[in-house]
């Protein structure tokens, strides 16, 4: 009897929760279709795609200057890509190391994890001071990049640790017993099996780096990354072109997710379970 009420109640709760979760994004999407003379708030004067055209530089000149996001977008993507590659490789390698207990593995573990625990503002500030002291110029591809790796590497590491935790070592031993070298074994056996985990680690590293703010703020130097330049536009005045941009980046993120999902599906479909015992003959 109880579950008769419980189920719809939980369903309603979940629906409300999801609405709440996506509320800001929905508002953003609606407002991005504001007309040319509308502001960044309700009501919608008229529906139009003007701000999208404005964003892409297709609209005729207007009193609002174009969002300065083009170059910073490229920078952020480059940075996220570099971070993804380095963090994932580091994460896989160190998780592989942690499969066997070694001397100092306990402290080493916590030192790695610290990178994602320490407040970003402090690390950013510390890095800025350090680079000043050492006389190293700050740039998104050097100082920021290092901090992005420090920040995302623990995530990649933890994901890979969880993957290796469930990993059946005997398949590697089977490969060795067939005369295959450890390096080939990693390439032909270990890596294909852990690949879904590697994908997840890459996704985490990419998204975390792509919208990293605090650590980048102090260390990016003159050329800004995307979150910084968006923040910069707030100080002037907000127009719906910012919302249009928000919608486009969200679409980009969705695309990444879809690619991730498709790849995952492709690599885990083979592991579909066989149930029941068949005749052996």
């Amino acid at each position, binding site marked *: 009897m109880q579950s008769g009420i419980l189920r719809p109640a939980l369903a309603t709760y979940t629906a409300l929760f999801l609405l709440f979760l996506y509320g800001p994004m929905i508002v953003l999407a609606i407002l991005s279709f504001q007309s040319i003379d509308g502001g960044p708030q309700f009501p919608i004067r008229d529906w139009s795609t003007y701000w999208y055209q404005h964003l892409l530089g297709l609209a005729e000149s207007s009193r609002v200057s174009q969002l300065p996001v083009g170059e910073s977008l490229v920078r952020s993507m480059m940075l996220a890509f570099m971070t993804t590659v380095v963090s994932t490789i580091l994460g896989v390698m160190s998780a592989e190391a942690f499969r066997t207990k070694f001397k100092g593995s306990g402290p080493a573990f916590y030192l790695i994890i610290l990178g994602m625990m320490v407040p970003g503002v402090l690390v950013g500030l510390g890095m800025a001071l350090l680079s000043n002291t050492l006389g190293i110029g700050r740039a998104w591809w050097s100082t920021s990049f290092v901090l992005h790796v420090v920040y995302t590497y623990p995530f990649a590491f933890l994901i890979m640790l969880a993957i290796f935790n469930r990993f059946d070592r*005997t398949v590697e031993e089977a490969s060795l017993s067939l005369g295959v070298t450890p390096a*080939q074994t990693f390439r032909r056996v270990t890596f294909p099996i852990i690949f879904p985990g590697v994908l997840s680690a890459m996704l985490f590293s990419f998204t975390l780096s792509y919208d990293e703010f605090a650590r980048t703020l102090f260390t990016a130097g003159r050329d800004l990354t995307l979150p910084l330049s968006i923040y910069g536009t707030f100080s002037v005045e907000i127009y719906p072109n910012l919302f249009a941009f928000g919608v486009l980046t969200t679409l980009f993120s969705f695309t990444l997710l879809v690619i991730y999902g498709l790849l995952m599906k492709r690599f885990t479909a083979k592991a579909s379970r066989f149930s029941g015992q068949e005749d052996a003959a």
Partner: protein
Amino acid sequence: MLTLSRISRSYGDTVALDGVDFVVPDDTYMSLLGASGSGKTTLLRLIAGFEEPDHGEISIHQTRIDGQAPHLRDIGFVFQNFALFPHLSVADNVAFGLRYRANKALNNDTEIKDRTQEALVLVGLDGFGHRGVSAISGGQRQRVALARTLVCEPRIVLLDEPLGALDANLRARMCDELRAIRQRLGVSFLHVTGSETEALTMGDEVAVLANGRITQSDTPDTLFSQPRTAEAARHMNAWNTFDGTLCDGMSVKGEIAVRFDQMDVSAQGRAPKDHLRVHAQYLTGEFNGPTALSFFRAADGTLLQIIDHLSQPRLPDLIEGQHYDLHFPSNALRQFHGAV
């Protein structure tokens, strides 16, 4: 010929192997029988090179292999859980070693295909090559694991409880097939198991691993009928081992063994005069189908078992809690001199 001499291996304070001396001759099916935790899997892992012994030497044809990397040893290993590569098809699993091994790797696709096909036919999996390894049954996985190992023609094949994951029906059939396959290839198998029936059925020779050592290595019938140590006798699961002083009618010292089927039961004082007697209390019986086991407890607490075959019942009606004389002819008795 695989030779192990004085192999020891400890994990912390636990001694797994304590000076194992062991020889696996060429072209032999060798069973290695040991209780769980006796170190039999450790022994296989040391031979395969996944772990190294603390002391001792392992050699094949007089060449030492301990210290060598596992992929250079040319020793096949069939795992209890099969350890198939989940991301590869059956055929790719079997072809894996041929394709990627460090020495003598094949890069001729037709040759790989032919060899793989041959191996699949050998284990009776013709036509299964394209399947995913998750889409076949347990028995078939076992065959894939075997084919994958055999196709590389290793110098010796180690099998770690290869039938443990199969149901009883399948196990009996795989027993025959494993023997047949081995005979066809002429390579030595070292088959580790905890089941004495499996060990005795399969092995041309059976070795018993107990207390970190090989306590006896003999042909199955010799081992079964003439165990040289109390340990070996206990592993056959067919011998009562007990202290000789429990016997009436003759003074016997040390630990002795009498087979389950060579003991008889009679009411107190009714045992034949020329038989040795052990006084014991009847506990309970266990019906196993074609045989029935009766359990007795001797004066010092030792558990004694007597087996009765349904076709030739020889035991009187027994009442739980009653005392009886268990008796046996003196030639049924085995004494262990200097046994542990």
